[in-house]
C-alpha cells in the first residue's frame, strides 16, 4: 500500500513515517515542559524529580511508539487475559496490604514499583470494548448486554476502593461506563442510573467513604472552613494559581512552591506549581495541548471501522479526559481533592506508564485507520 503522507518523505523508513507525528510532538512538548516544572519544583535541581521523570518519559514514549505497531486484533485478544492478570495483582496488593498493615497501593516488582490500579484505567476500557465486540448487535438492548460489563467494572472498582483510592475507583468506573454508553446501551438506563446515583451518593458518603475522603468532600464545599487542615491544599493551590497572573512569576520564581506553602507541588498539585511560574498562558496552553490530544483520540474513534477499535479509542479518550479534567478541577477548587494526578505533568511512574500506554494503544488504532482509509 502506498500512502500520501510517506510519498514526499521517501527517505524516512516507512514504520516511522506512519507515526502520527503531530501527536507525538505534542506529547513530547508536554513531557519536556514537565521537566522544567519539576526542575523548578525541586528548587532548581534535576534531582530528585526531573531526572528520573525524564528518563522514564523517554523510555515510555519509545515504548508507546513501539506499541503503535501492535495490531488491533492483538489488543482485542489480550484485553481480557490482561484484565484478569490486573485483577490478580489488585488482589495481591490487597493481601500484601493486609499483611503489611494498611493502605498499600503498589507492588514491588524488583526494579519497578507498580500500581496495578493505574493499569486498570486503560484495561477496563479494553475489556469492556472486547465484551461489546463479542456481543452480537441484536443483543445490545437486552439485560445480557448490561450485567457482564457491570461485573467487569465492579470488581476492580471495589478492590481499589478498599485500598482506599476514591479517585482511581471513580476513573475506572467512569471509563467502563463510558464504553457502555458508547456501545449503545439504552439512554434511559443512564438517566435512571444517574438518578440512582443521586440517591445512593449520600448513602455512600455516609457508609462507604473513609473519614478522610468524607472530610475532603466537606472541605471542598467550604475550603476556608479549615485553612490549616485539609482545606489548606486547596487554598494554597488557588493562591499559587491566582498569584501567577497572566504571565506568571517567571521560571524558578514561584514562592508558593519554593517556600513549601503548596503541598504536593510536584505530584497532584503540579498544575499550581506550573501556573504560578508560567501564569494563565502556561495553563491555557496546557489545556489546549491536552484537549487537542483528546480530540485526536475521539477522531481516531470516529474513523475506526471495527467495533473494538471504536469503543477502545473513545474510551481511552475519555480516560485521558478524566485524568486531565478531574486533576485540574481539583487543583482549582472546582472538585474535591481525590488524588488524581495530572497526566505527564505530575511526578510519578505509574500514571506516566498508564497515560503513555493509552497513547500507544491510540496510536496503534490510528495506524490501522490510516492503512484502511489511505489518505
Amino acid at each position, binding site marked *: 500500500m502506498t500512502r500520501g503522507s510517506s510519498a514526499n518523505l521517501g527517505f524516512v523508513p516507512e514504520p516511522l513515517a506512519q507515526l502520527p507525528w503531530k501527536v507525538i510532538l505534542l506529547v513530547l512538548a508536554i513531557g519536556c515542559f514537565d521537566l522544567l516544572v519539576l526542575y523548578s519544583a525541586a528548587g532548581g535541581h534535576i534531582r530528585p524529580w526531573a531526572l528520573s521523570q525524564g528518563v522514564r518519559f523517554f523510555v515510555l514514549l519509545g515504548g508507546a511508539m513501539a506499541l503503535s505497531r501492535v495490531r488491533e486484533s492483538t489488543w482485542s485478544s489480550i484485553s481480557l487475559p490482561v484484565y484478569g492478570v490486573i485483577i490478580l495483582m489488585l488482589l495481591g496488593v490487597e493481601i500484601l496490604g493486609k499483611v503489611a498493615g494498611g493502605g498499600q497501593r503498589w507492588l514491588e516488582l524488583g526494579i519497578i514499583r507498580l500500581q496495578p490500579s493505574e493499569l486498570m484505567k486503560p484495561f477496563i476500557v479494553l475489556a469492556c470494548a472486547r465484551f461489546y465486540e463479542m456481543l452480537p*448487535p*441484536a443483543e*445490545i*438492548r437486552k439485560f445480557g448486554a448490561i450485567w457482564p460489563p457491570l461485573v467487569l467494572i465492579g470488581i476492580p472498582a471495589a478492590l481499589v476502593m478498599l485500598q482506599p483510592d476514591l479517585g482511581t475507583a471513580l476513573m475506572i468506573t467512569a471509563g467502563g461506563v*463510558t464504553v457502555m*454508553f*458508547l*456501545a*449503545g446501551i*439504552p439512554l434511559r438506563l443512564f438517566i435512571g442510573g444517574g438518578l440512582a446515583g443521586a440517591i445512593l451518593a449520600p448513602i455512600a458518603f455516609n457508609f462507604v467513604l473513609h473519614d478522610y475522603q468524607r472530610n475532603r468532600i466537606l472541605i471542598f464545599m467550604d475550603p476556608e472552613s479549615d485553612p490549616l487542615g485539609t482545606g489548606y491544599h486547596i487554598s*494554597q493551590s*488557588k*493562591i*499559587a*494559581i*491566582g*498569584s*501567577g*497572573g*497572566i504571565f506568571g512569576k517567571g521560571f524558578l520564581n514561584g*514562592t*508558593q512552591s519554593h*517556600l*513549601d*506553602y503548596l503541598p504536593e507541588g510536584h505530584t497532584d498539585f503540579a498544575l499550581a506549581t506550573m*501556573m504560578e511560574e508560567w*501564569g*494563565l498562558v502556561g*495553563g*491555557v496552553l496546557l*489545556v489546549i495541548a491536552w*484537549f487537542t490530544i*483528546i*480530540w485526536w483520540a*475521539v477522531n481516531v*474513534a*470516529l474513523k475506526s471501522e471495527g*467495533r473494538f477499535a*471504536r*469503543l477502545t479509542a*473513545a474510551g481511552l*479518550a*475519555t480516560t485521558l*479526559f478524566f485524568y486531565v*479534567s478531574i486533576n*485540574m*478541577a481539583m487543583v*482549582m477548587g*472546582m472538585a474535591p481533592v481525590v488524588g488524581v494526578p495530572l497526566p505527564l505533568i505530575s511526578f510519578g511512574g505509574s500514571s506516566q506508564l498508564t497515560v503513555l500506554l493509552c497513547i500507544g494503544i491510540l496510536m496503534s488504532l490510528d495506524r490501522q485507520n490510516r492503512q484502511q482509509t489511505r489518505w
Partner: protein
Amino acid sequence: MNRPTRLVNEVQQSYSFSRRALVLGAAQGAVAVALASRMTWLAVIENQRYQLLAESNRVNLTMIPPRRGWIIDRYGHPIANNRTDFRVDIIPDRLPKEQTDQVLKLLQQLLSLPPEQIARIQTDLKRAAGFQPVQVAENLDWDRFAAIQVRLPELPGVAPTRGYSRSYPAGPAVAHLTGYVGAASAEQYKQTKNPLFITPGFKIGKDGLEKALEEKLRGSPGAKRVEVTAHGKLVRELATRQDVPGHNQRLTIDAGLQEYAARRLGTNSGSAVVIDVTSGDLLAFVSMPAYDPNSFSDGISHLEWKMLSDNDHVPLMNKVLQGLYPPGSTVKPMNGLALLRAGVSPDDRISCGGALRVGNGIFHCHKRSGHGPLNLKQAIMASCDIYFYEMVRRLGYDQVAPVARTLGLGQKFDLPFSTQRYGTVPDSAWKLKKYKAEWTVADSLNASIGQGYVLANPIQLAVMASRIASGRSLQPRVVMSGNAPIANPLPLNPEHLAYIRDAMYGVVNQGGTGGRARLNIPGVSLGAKTGTAQVRRITMAERAGGVRSNASLPFKMRDHALFICFAPVENPRYAAAIVLEHGGHTVTNLDTPGIGRDIITYLLDRDRALKSLAEVEPTWGGDIATRMAAETAAYKSQISLVQGAQTETNATAAPTDAPAVEAATDAANSSAAAIANTAQPAEEGSREATND
C-alpha cells in the same frame, strides 16, 4: 419510542456510536472551556487578591520598636539612655494551649529560668489578652538568645527579639525625675489600636518625664520583612525599614549634682531641689529613697513592689512635687520681707521671754528661756518665734500672705509632671471660703512660724529661696528649651531683699541657727534659713516635764527638718531647698545644714564635696545601691521567715504594671497630708491641703 423488540443492526449501532461519541466530545470541549475559564478567573479577575495572599504567606513582617530618645542633662551627659538587649517574649495568640507546657519546659531548659519565673509566665499567660506579649526573659546573653533562635521551630508563639532597653545610669537618683517606662497596658492598646503597643520590647513612659515627654521621645517604628517558608524557617531578609529614633531631650538638670544630692541625702527620707538663680533652671530634682527605674522598666515583681510600699520612707512618692510640709521657720525671711513691706523698721525690737500669751492660749518660743530683745535680722538669725508671733499679731497675716504668694508659696509651676500638689497659703478670705469661719489671731500666729494652715512642697521652698536670692520672679524649668526668659523683678523693694539676704547670711556666718552650713571655700559664703516642723501636738503636760527629744520618738512622730539656702551671698548664683521627713535634727551629718552646705559646695568645688561625702557615706551603710541591696535582702529574709515559701508564688502573681505603683503613691501622699494635718498646734485636722 424504542421498542424492546426492535432489532439493532450494525449500521444503526455505528450511527448511534458516532452520535454518542460526538455528544461526549462536545461535553469534553465544554469542560475544557470551563477549565480555561476557571484559570482566567483565578489568574486575572482574582489575581490581586491572591497576589496579596501569596505575599502575606511569603513575607513575615515584624515591627522594630523605635529607639527611645535619650534624656540628657544640661551638659549632655545621659540621664536615660538605651542599651542593647536580647529578649524573649511569648505571643499567647500564637501558642496553642495544648503545647504551652511543652514550650515552657523547653524555654526553662534553654534559658535556665528559675521556677518562680516559670510560675510568673504561666500566670501572665493566663491573664494576658491574647495579642499582648508576655515577657519570658530580658537582658539575655548571646549564647542563650542564639539557643532560642535555633530551636524556634519547636517553640510556637515564642518571639525572640534583639532590641534596646531603657537604662538609667544613676538609677534611683533620677527615679522621680525621669519616671520609668514599661509595656503598654491592654487598655492603651485597645484605645489606640496602635500595633506598636503590642510589639515585644516596646515600652512607653509610665511616670515622670518619660511619660510627660512621651511624644518627643518615642520616635517611629521600623519594620523588618523576612521571607519565610511554610515551616517558619527564615529564608532571607528583605528590605528592612529602619526605625526613626525619638528625639533626645536636654534637661536643665546637672546629672552629677543630681546624683551627688541623692547620695548626700543618705538614709533620710527627703528631697532636695537646686535652682540656678540666673535662669530658674532646676539643677537637681531629688526625692529619696526611690525605686530603681531600671528594674521598674523591666517589670517589677510583687515582692519588690510590696517592699517599696511597706517602707516608711515612702520610696514610691515623688516628694519634690507631691510632698506637702508645714514649711516651719523657713518662712521667716519671707515674713521679714512682708514686715518690711508693711512698714516695720528693721530696727524695731521685740523682746522674747520664751512665751507669748494670746487670749487664753500660750504660744511658746523654741527657746524656753527666751531670746531677749531682738531686731528683724537677729530674729531671723535666732529663728525667734516670739518676734514673728508678735509682729504678725500686730499686722495680721493678710499682710503676709500676698508676699508668700509672690515668692512662690501656694503656686503651681508649669512643669511637665502629671501630678503636682501645691499646698496652701492661708488668709482670712481663704478660711472663710473653705471653712466658713473667721480668721483668728491664733491662725495668724501659727502661720507666722510656717505651721498651721501653711503647707508647701520642696520645689516651692526652693523657688522662694531663688526669688529672695535673685529678686526676680523666677519660674522653675526642667526641660531645656533655648535661653530662659529674663524673669521680671519682684514687686518688692530691693533694699528690703538685700536686708533679708544679709539676715540669711547671718544665720550661717554670724552665729545664727545654721552655723553648720558655713562653706569651707574661701571668699564664698552661704545664706540660709533652717526650719523645723512639728508633726505632733506638744501637750502642756509634756512641755512642763520637758519636750521629748526627737531621737526618743518613733520615726513617724519626729519633726520634719527643712532648709533653704543660696550662694554666693555676694552675687547669688544657686538656691536650694532641702526637706527631710521626720529628720528631727537627730544625726549631725544627716541634718539639713550639712546637706545644704555640701550640695552647694559640689557646685563650687566638686572635689571637696566628693571627698567629704566619701568620708561619711560608709557610716550610712554604703552607697545607694549597696543600701538598697541590703534592704531587699533583709526584707526578703524577714518575709520568708513569716510566710515561708508561699511568698514567691504570690509575688509572681503580681501585676507588672504601673497603676498599682500609682495607687501606692496616692496612699503615701494622703498619709503625708494626714501627718501634716496633725502638725497644727491650734486645731485638729479637719483641714485639707489643696491639690490639683
